[in-house]
């Protein structure tokens, strides 16, 4: 693996700096920024796709970004097994370009929602989460189109293949509608692809890396150490 972390950013990305700060703080390395029109990405290391409103989120959140040259490269690398992490808008982009199952649609409340939520880690067999000791972590969410939708057939496939990674829960890990901030199917907050090298999640671990905002994000990034 390369000693490299890349952040792909688009016009309208706005969590790119926050992500870079978190990566620098936790992984002690400076991420490489790749602009959306990058048509040849060599040795990217881990690829991050940050939150924000790529291309204004016009048409549907994430869709316009999927047509950029950099995402074609992301797809190529994904097939080769490169670890890819999409957060918030990054998750939306990964579902729109079909690297991940399902779709992210308007929250049930129809409103943007910004708050801290608890997430139960559903699966620790995967390299994205196996080093996280806690069973439940607390990250902020900030989105209006974060309701994860998938039909029953594909939901079963996600379950059978252990692709569900995070679910919205209580502090103690209870899963119920009460703890579902956006109406996601089965409280799903994050999933991986079948090959388990592409992760998408709506909550923001990069917003939980200091004593003021909570420190649960640190374990998320530190856990990636062996991948780089």
């Amino acid at each position, binding site marked *: 693996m390369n000693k490299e972390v890349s952040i792909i950013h688009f016009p309208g990305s706005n969590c790119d700096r926050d992500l870079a700060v978190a990566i620098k703080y936790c992984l002690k390395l400076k991420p490489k920024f790749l602009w959306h029109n990058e048509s040849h990405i060599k040795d990217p290391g881990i690829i991050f796709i940050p939150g924000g409103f790529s291309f204004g989120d016009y048409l*549907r959140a994430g*869709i316009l970004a999927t*047509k950029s040259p950099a995402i074609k490269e992301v797809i190529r690398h994904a097939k080769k097994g490169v670890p890819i992490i999409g957060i918030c808008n990054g998750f939306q982009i990964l*579902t729109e370009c079909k690297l991940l199952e399902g*779709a992210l*649609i308007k929250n*049930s409340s*129809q409103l943007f929602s910004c708050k801290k939520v608890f997430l139960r880690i559903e699966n620790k067999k995967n390299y994205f989460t196996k080093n996280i000791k806690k069973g439940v972590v607390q990250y902020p969410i900030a989105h209006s189109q974060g309701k994860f939708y*998938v*039909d029953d057939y594909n939901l079963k496939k996600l379950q059978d293949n252990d692709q569900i990674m995070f679910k919205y829960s209580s502090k103690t890990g209870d899963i119920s509608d009460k703890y579902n901030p956006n109406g996601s199917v089965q409280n799903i907050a994050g999933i991986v692809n079948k090959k388990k090298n592409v992760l998408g999640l709506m909550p923001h671990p990069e917003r939980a890396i200091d004593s003021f905002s909570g420190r649960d994000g640190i374990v998320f990034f530190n856990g990636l150490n062996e991948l780089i």
Partner: protein
Amino acid sequence: MIYRVYVEFKPGILDPESEAIKRTVNQLGFSNVENISKGKFFDIELSSNNCLSDIEKISKELLSNPVIENFKVVKK
């Protein structure tokens, strides 16, 4: 040549916005309104004819998300 592409939610996908519109319509006194579903359309002007396949491609790859939406192309 102008084509109009209609995009709407697949049946079964809950659209709270349409639900809210329907409730308001009912409250306005139209108690016979049982369902409202909304969608959007795009008018696409082409310089040459017989490009229906291009329009289909644009609709499928960009204008709609097959996971949640259906589309329909109509010649204007």
